[in-house]
């Protein structure tokens, strides 16, 4: 493979390691130790502790510093095993069953499982004269506590978010879905990182072929390391050139669970709090988990607000440019006079003015993300001054333009998912250029081009714009509007076979009829 050709000097050693790893354990303890020592050469974090069980059998304990619970090793493994015994000859396997008080003990027969167990933090116990080793489930490493996800804040709803640990994440899912129908398939991707990837779905709700497809796509990945679910996303999406996300990304267990219940598949990647949900559609990217916790009228209104601001974030600067440059007659006279008045001293055409301000704004926004917290405040003050007052005072931009830019900036934050807001932020610029050259016609052309592109997209076989195009009348109840929960009787149809009904109908609450009245 490519890697190996490049690093020729490492080749022999690597090949030897590959060979050693595949071998089964020897019965000779010294030989086993030698092989492990060879594998973990120059790994100062791997600790080898040799001791004698009951004064009779030599044993070796191997663990990685900082990944195992040392107190438990001391009290539950070493102490009981090193105690003397009255018996003349002891059976080591029996002794381990009798004395080691650890809940999870896995038997090991080869070096590769040995390495695997060690790298997840489980200490390995090897005995002299025994071809079997034991991995003790005493892994313990530092992890972040469960916190509220900072990227997806809600007013009402659970405050917990996924963490970097895949075990914690799957346990969060399992805590919400108690049914054993919740299945998790484990895959390891990355030749060096061996990252755990869990494909999570609910049996009978998700289409078998969909799960098969996702598994195949993930298995096809051949890469040295997976550091974030973004790697997986980019390597499994349908159209890799599209700026639009074809997989839903969330940090919230409740969002993941609601998608599982709709028959989608959740992909949990070790080392990141962001889980992937596939397949997804355009409209579901504009939904927030909170939509289902508030009253449906409020949620519907919120959704409309989001779509309105989506259009603002995409089109407002372009509309401004088009109207000012080509279609002045559209503006009521008094307003037009005010606008012309403020633009009188501006040396640039509206298009240049808009581009200037939008690019400055995007730059400030990006800088605000990257800057150390201590300097952040200073930058926002400077930014506000530069964008707002100074630019106007210097006669570079007009007041209405500042308003337009500010509104556009705010608008893109109303979209609940960051990854769908970005393409619209980007596409604003080509549309601005079109608006500057062709007016409203240009905007329309740009908009149509975007819709064409969206119509060609699919996410794991599901048309991106469904259920609007192709129209699925039954699924419209949860796109532009959020129908009341007692009306959401059916699951959205994704692909192939699916479990249609999610609840019984006629659940609209009504007061108990009282016969005594009248």
């Amino acid at each position: 493979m490519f890697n190996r050709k490049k690093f020729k000097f490492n080749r022999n050693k690597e090949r030897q390691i590959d060979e050693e790893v595949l071998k089964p354990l020897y019965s000779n303890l010294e030989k086993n130790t030698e092989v492990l020592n060879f594998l973990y050469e120059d790994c100062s974090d791997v600790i080898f502790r040799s001791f004698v069980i009951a004064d009779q059998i030599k044993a070796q304990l191997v663990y990685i510093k900082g990944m195992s619970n040392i107190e438990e090793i001391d009290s539950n493994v070493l102490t009981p095993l090193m105690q003397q015994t009255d018996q003349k000859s002891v059976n080591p396997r029996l002794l381990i069953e009798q004395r080691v008080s650890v809940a999870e003990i896995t038997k090991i027969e080869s070096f590769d499982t040995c390495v695997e167990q060690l790298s997840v933090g489980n200490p390995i116990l090897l005995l002299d004269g025994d071809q079997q080793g034991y991995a003790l489930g005493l892994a313990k490493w530092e992890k972040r506590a469960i916190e509220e996800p900072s990227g997806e804040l809600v007013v009402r709803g659970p405050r917990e978010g996924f963490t970097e640990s895949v075990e914690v994440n799957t346990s969060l899912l399992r805590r919400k879905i108690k049914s054993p129908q919740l299945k998790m398939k484990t895959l390891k991707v990355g030749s060096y990182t061996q990252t755990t990837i869990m494909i999570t779905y609910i049996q009978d709700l998700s289409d078998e072929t969909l799960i098969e497809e996702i598994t195949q796509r993930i298995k096809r990945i051949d890469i040295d390391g997976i550091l974030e679910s973004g790697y997986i996303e980019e390597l499994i999406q349908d159209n890799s050139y599209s700026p639009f996300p074809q997989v839903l990304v969330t940090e919230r267990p409740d969002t993941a669970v609601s998608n599982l219940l709709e028959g989608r598949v959740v992909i949990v990647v070790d080392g990141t709090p962001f889980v992937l949900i596939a397949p997804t559609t355009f409209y579901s990217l504009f939904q927030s988990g909170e939509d289902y916790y508030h009253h449906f009228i409020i949620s519907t209104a919120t959704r409309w607000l989001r779509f309105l601001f989506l259009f603002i974030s995409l089109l407002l600067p372009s509309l401004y440019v088009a109207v000012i440059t080509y279609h002045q007659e559209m503006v009521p006279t008094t307003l037009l006079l005010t606008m012309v008045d403020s633009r009188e001293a501006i040396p640039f055409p509206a298009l240049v003015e808009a581009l200037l301000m939008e690019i400055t704004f995007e730059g400030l926004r990006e800088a605000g993300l990257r800057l150390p917290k201590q300097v952040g405040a200073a930058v926002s003050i400077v930014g506000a001054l530069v964008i707002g007052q100074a630019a106007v005072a210097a006669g570079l931009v007009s007041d209405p333009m500042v308003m337009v830019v500010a509104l556009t900036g705010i608008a893109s934050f109303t979209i609940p998912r960051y990854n769908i807001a970005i393409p619209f932020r980007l596409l604003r610029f080509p549309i601005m250029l079109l608006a500057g050259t062709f007016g409203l016609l240009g905007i329309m052309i740009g908009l149509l081009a975007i819709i064409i592109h969206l119509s060609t997209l699919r996410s794991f076989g599901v048309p991106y714009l469904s259920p609007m195009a192709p129209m699925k009348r039954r699924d419209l109840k949860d796109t532009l509007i959020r129908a009341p929960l007692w009306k959401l009787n059916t699951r959205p149809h994704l692909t192939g076979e699916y479990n249609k009904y999610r609840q019984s109908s006629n659940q609209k609450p009504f007061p108990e009829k009282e016969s005594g009245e009248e």
Partner: protein
Amino acid sequence: MIEKGKISASQMSVMMYHAIIATGILFIPKTVFDAAQQDIWISPLWAFPLGLLSVYIAYKLHKLYPDDTIMQYSEHILGVFFGKVIGFILLLLLYTSISVMVWQYGEFVVSEFLPHTPKYVVIGMMILLCAFAVHGGLEVIGRLSEMVFPVFFLLFLVIVVLLLPDIEIKRMLPVMENGIMPSVKGSLALYTWFAQFGIIYFFFPYLTNREKGMKWGGISVLAVTITLVLTNIIVILVFGRVTGNFTAPLMSAARYISIAEFLSHLEAIVMAIWIAGTFIKICVFYYALVLGTAQWFNLSNYRSLVLPTGFLIGVFAIQAFLNSAEASEHFHEVSHGLTDTLVYGLIIPMFLLSIAYIRKMKIFKQKGREKK
């Protein structure tokens, strides 16, 4: 099959709706007014059966050859040589038809909105955009039309409602002043549009629910008729006897709208939405043409033809007419004679259907003779 995508019957219906109404909604009132005067709103009703007939003939042919488009079954019916000849004529007519549509679009945009923009830029941009959509295939066009339809229709209704303060009922009186003949004569011009329903024969084989094809085709014709009746009523109620002076009365009517000093001069928005409709119209015809050409040449893939065809359409469209005076003279001549859309939308399919039936009867007779 050359096209792997499938659309639903309702998608086809929406596509056809756009394909007819997009230009119709602007130009029909004036064209019909010349003959029908204040009765223009009755004319679409007379044209309605013709649209239905086009769809019905296409559907009958589809029933005989369920997996083929007209390019293929013309060869089954007439033999390879004559089938190819009919196919060639059909493609040529489609070419000219689309070119005229694109020209109309370009002329209208340039004369009404962007007088300083060269026409070939306006036309070229639209054709590139359509090529992008056609390249996506039938499914994409179907989805696009579904996305555009609600906006288009809603805006149409909003315009109608906003025009209500300007209407005056007496402008459409007296109804049928000279009997029904003027409105029937007016409907002759409408045949140009309604015959275009014929190209539905390119879409029938690609339906997911073929049995609903006729139903949704009929709904499409009905929707077009209703929209046109509504358009004509509102135009005649607003403009009365001066309707004939406008090329696009509905657009001019939109200029009239002025509510609370704020909602005024909506024609730019009307134009923007109208462009979306026209875009679908051109896409539908463009797609039919590309698919037909590919089938005529027996190609296995039509996508390689998208750009060359687009280029040809663009060249034809720019060269179509010198100016709108020449065009209106042309239309005047054409709409009183045999129109090209009538040929490819109605006459050719009708001819094919009758030959197909005659051949079928012959086969029956032969079989009958053999039995005896």
